[in-house]
């Protein structure tokens, strides 16, 4: 009888090993999620057991339910739209100016002497310190939020663009000149691609500051947007909505960063350091 069992076990062994390998592969990719999942479980269990008071931190299930209600009423989408528009428009203005000025000061010594020390001086003022002034200037208008977001995202893009343009290999520039490239071609074929890795660093920093600024601005002075949604809920002690708003910010921030990284990988695929496996 045992003789009949043994060969079966022998056949089963490779399959078991394959399954084991598959598990290990899954384990490796799931490992970063283990800690958050455990934390979430502990949170849910703690809430259900009554250890965590609902007024302090509602259960994850309650937060999700609040989110579902907001989504159903259309309030969530409307606020996300408003916030996303503010973030992107402000970033387009600030990042665009940062890129332009960064290229200018990176390329021209005159531009650097004229502009850079002024910009560095302004950079040392925390832009959020301007909120009272901005409210005086713009009230709680859209312009106030756009101004703050643009101001905040300007500096990282500016600094990294200038640095990127400066650190383009001068030997390549000389090669371009020797091979008859005129200034626009030199910029397009050598300076810009050479500065791009650094510009992307600035872009990703700028995106982080963009969300940070928007959260603060919307929390302090707004009558729409996710930050407003959270502050409004606070007045009615809707803790679940407050927590949900924070989660939405986190997700939007993560989404923006992932998109930037994807773009980075696509644009810098020539660089072994960015090549995706």
């Amino acid at each position, binding site marked *: 009888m045992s003789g009949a069992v043994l060969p079966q076990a022998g056949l089963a062994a490779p399959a078991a090993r394959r399954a084991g390998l598959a598990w290990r592969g899954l384990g490796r990719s799931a490992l970063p999620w283990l800690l958050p999942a455990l934390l979430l479980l502990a949170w849910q269990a703690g809430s259900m057991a009554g250890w965590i008071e609902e007024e302090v931190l509602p259960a994850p299930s309650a937060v999700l339910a609040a989110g579902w209600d907001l989504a159903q009423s259309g309030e969530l989408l409307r606020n996300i739209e408003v916030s996303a528009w503010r973030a992107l428009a402000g970033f387009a203005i600030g990042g665009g100016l940062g890129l332009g000025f960064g290229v200018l000061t990176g390329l021209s010594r005159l531009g650097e002497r004229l502009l850079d020390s002024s910009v560095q001086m302004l950079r040392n003022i925390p832009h959020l310190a301007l909120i009272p002034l901005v409210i005086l200037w713009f009230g709680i208008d859209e312009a106030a939020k756009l101004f703050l977001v643009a101001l905040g995202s300007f500096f990282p893009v500016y600094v990294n663009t200038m640095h990127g343009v400066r650190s383009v290999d001068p*030997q*390549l520039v*000389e*090669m*371009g*000149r*020797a*091979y*008859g*490239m005129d200034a626009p*071609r030199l910029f397009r*074929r*050598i300076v810009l*691609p*050479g500065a*791009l890795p650094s510009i992307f660093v600035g872009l990703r920093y700028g995106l982080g500051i963009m969300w940070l600024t928007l959260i603060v601005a919307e929390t302090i002075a707004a009558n729409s947007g996710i930050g407003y949604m959270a502050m409004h809920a606070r007045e009615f002690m809707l803790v679940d909505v407050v927590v949900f708003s924070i989660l939405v910010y986190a997700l939007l921030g993560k989404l923006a960063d992932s998109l930037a990284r994807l773009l980075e990988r696509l644009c*810098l695929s*020539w*660089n*072994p350091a960015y090549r995706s496996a």
Partner: protein
Amino acid sequence: MDGMVQAPARAGAAAVGIRGLRKDFGGPSVLQGIDLDIPAGQFLAVVGRSGCGKSTLLRLIAGLDRPSAGTLALQAGPERLAPEAAVRLMFQEPRLLPWSSIRGNVEVGLARDTPAALREARAQAALAEVGLADRAAEWPSVLSGGQKQRVALARALVSRPRLLVLDEPLGALDALTRIGMQALVEEVWRAEGFTAVLVTHDVGEAVALADRVILLERGRVAMDLAIDLPRPRRRGDAALAGFEARILERLLAGER
């Protein structure tokens, strides 16, 4: 016999005429009045110790710097040539654009008015000439040092220059790769018939490749020697070694 000594000059190879050429960078002159005629189609090697001014001379010929005094003229027959179009340069380093494909890098060498339909075919042909036709779509970062220099050579050749100027392009290569590259440079020079000016530290390389070797010393031409040996030349050949010994002797004498 003469045909074996020197490839026939292609119609349009550039002749270089240099009179009283001086160059200083604010301090003492690096070049102190050079007079030199390079006939069309000649392969000239410039040797000398570090700081003798050979790279400066090369940069002036290539139009990268302007002379402080004196004149430098490029001519094809009666036609006066502008350096941007007529001269191509190979640097010590490959200087490839890492963000362009290998073919894209070769296309950098094409004249800007080359029709789009022709660009790819011309680049592909130049890559075939240096034996890298099948790598055209790859990034330069995957190539070895010798292969990168071959791409740089293809980039220099793709516009069919009238004068090719080489600034120690083989200095950083290992011995075997270097011998292969020397053979390749000689082969394309013989096939295309351009004028070539090679700056090198390596006297052996100079006498193996060149029709004529000049030795620069403190910004002046200290020796001007025709290497009238048939091609292809064999390494270790006694006559070759004789030329090499004479130049080395003069180089060392200049030191004392």
